[in-house]
């Protein structure tokens, strides 16, 4: 399987040079990654009733990198994704997509349409829609109201859905309602929806929960294949899985970065050992 083919045409690479000439999104203009990072979180603090879920968190994700984020329960991993996707507004600090796009001032749908896709910790698909329709809804397209009323799927779009159905191994289930899928299949469907969005950054929260060993391996293959042309941020508790895909690992603890480096560096870091084994 050639992972680069997952996104079909490679139109994205082209539009990066021609500065959004062909693209039509709510926010015009391409993400500016000329300085390396694609995501900039700086001194982000989020508090819930005085409790700081994120505490002066500073984190950069490079364009094209695969980053694993680990940390104990309640470390703020999901909250970090909430900040990036506009679900939660930080009390202080900044979040930028590329050099120019201030995520804290954009709404959820704008953030999605400029190319940040997200898979939730709890698989969330549209239960009453078929698997096919779930992918169709997620597909990168003009998502405004009137075009949705008149629009019809063209052949190319159908092919794209068929392709992703194969990638996520749901070809046989395409006419089933998503509610009828097993937990693992729902995870895959959500990954499929992420692929359909053709995002620049994929935020993946605990992707392998409920998956068999084989499915886990396939997920690892998929995510590592995507990195390079996209940036992938994976939150996962399963250390074996993280080890199998990780290049760079960030450890979050109590809302800020505890350690960063490759897997071995991180695992031998005294503060990390302290948090995971001590206390």
């Amino acid at each position, binding site marked *: 399987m050639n992972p680069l083919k997952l996104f079909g045409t490679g139109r994205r690479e082209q539009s990066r040079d021609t500065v959004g000439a062909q693209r039509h999104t*709510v926010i015009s203009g391409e993400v500016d990654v000329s300085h390396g990072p694609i995501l900039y979180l700086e001194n982000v603090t989020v508090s819930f009733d005085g409790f700081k879920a994120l505490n002066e968190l500073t984190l950069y994700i490079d364009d094209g990198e695969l980053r694993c984020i680990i940390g104990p329960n309640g470390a703020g991993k999901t909250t970090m994704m909430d900040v990036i996707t506009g679900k939660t507004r930080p009390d202080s600090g900044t979040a930028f997509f590329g050099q120019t796009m201030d995520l804290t001032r954009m709404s959820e749908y704008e953030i999605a349409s400029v190319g940040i896709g997200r898979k939730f910790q709890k698989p969330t698909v549209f239960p009453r829609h078929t698997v096919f329709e779930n992918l169709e809804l997620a597909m990168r397209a003009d998502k405004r109201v009137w075009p949705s009323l008149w629009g019809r799927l063209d052949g190319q779009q159908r092919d794209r859905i068929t392709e992703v159905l194969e990638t996520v191994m749901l070809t046989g289930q395409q006419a089933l309602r998503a509610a009828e899928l097993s937990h693992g299949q729902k995870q895959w469907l959500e990954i499929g929806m992420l692929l359909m*969005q053709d995002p620049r950054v994929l935020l993946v929260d605990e992707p392998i929960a409920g998956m068999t060993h084989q499915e886990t391996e396939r997920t690892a293959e998929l995510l590592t294949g995507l990195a390079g042309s996209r940036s992938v941020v994976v939150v996962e508790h399963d250390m074996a899985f993280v080890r199998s895909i990780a290049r760079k690992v960030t450890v979050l603890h109590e809302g800020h970065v505890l350690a960063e480096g490759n897997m071995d560096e991180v695992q031998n870091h005294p503060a990390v050992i302290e948090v995971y084994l001590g206390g």
Partner: protein
Amino acid sequence: MPSKGLLLRILEHDTGGKIFLSLLAVVAVLVSVLNLAVPEGSPLHVSTYTVTLLGKYLCYALLAVALDLVWGYCGILSLGHAAFFALGGYCMGMYLMRQVGDRGVYGNPDLPDFMVFLNWTELPWYWFGFDQFWFTMLMVMLVPGVLALVFGWLAFRSRVTGVYLSIITQALTFALMLAFFRNEMGFGGNNGLTDFKELLGFNLQNDVTRVGLFLISALTLAVAYFVARYVVNSKLGRVVVAVRDAEDRARFIGYKVESFKLWIFVFSAMLAGLAGALYVPQVGIINPSEFSPLNSIELVVWVAVGGCGTLYGAVLGALLVNFAKTYFTGALPEVWLFALGTLFVVVTLFLPHGLVGLLKRRRKKATLNEAPT
């Protein structure tokens, strides 16, 4: 014929819709013929009273379809939808008042009787234009549409959902009712608008006019059904259902949820306005009681009884409940409200998908039993 192909394509997987539309066509033709062509003495004759009653039910059915679009498909439980119906009705009422001309009790060619009675000397500005039929029809859709737009924009933008939204829609219709009760509003106070004479020159008391209105109601219902079905079959329709089932997910894949809610809400309000406009010339009156919160709640019961989220279920529910209502209010007027309440409780407890859901379950069971083992 391409248009026929389109209509069939819209109904492609809609068995319920096909049955409903066929029945509607048959009943519309049959009732008209039995009223106009069969002499009054004959046992087969359908009285004009019945024709008008049926016409009224069809308006309710259209209103129910409108509610089903926002409630069944988008999950917005509006408890104020009768307000849009009443506004459409008032627009039509204003036109019918202007049509009366100098044949009112006071014989004033410009002012409706109630204004003369209030010693008003000129027509308020918002009554201008309602002597024109085309303007009226425009307003019938625009007035409810604009109200829905403003209200929906405020509510959806601040992400008011669920019970809170239901409560403020209820407050909306209640506020309108109080406003329309006031004489100074210029809509006839608690008497409303009535004593209509003619519509586009047709005498409203004539049998032919009555049958005409009934047929137009049937036709409008059918057309509205097709349009509504097209909408729910479109990608927009799928997004709307997605918003109902997992609003956040829809946001995070790039849909501006508020806009979709607003679109379907406004579209629904316009359909409701149209239903109200067809209703008024048939019942001959529109007054503030049409804004009564209870009306909106009854409407919800119709849709719940029929089964929401199918469109034809809403039609079925509106027809059945209103037949029952006509029967009960004639035979045992004091029990109607209790019957309605009981119906709602029974349906919510035992028939979460309404009568349509029950029928579907039966059919599934039957096919399962038939299947060879």
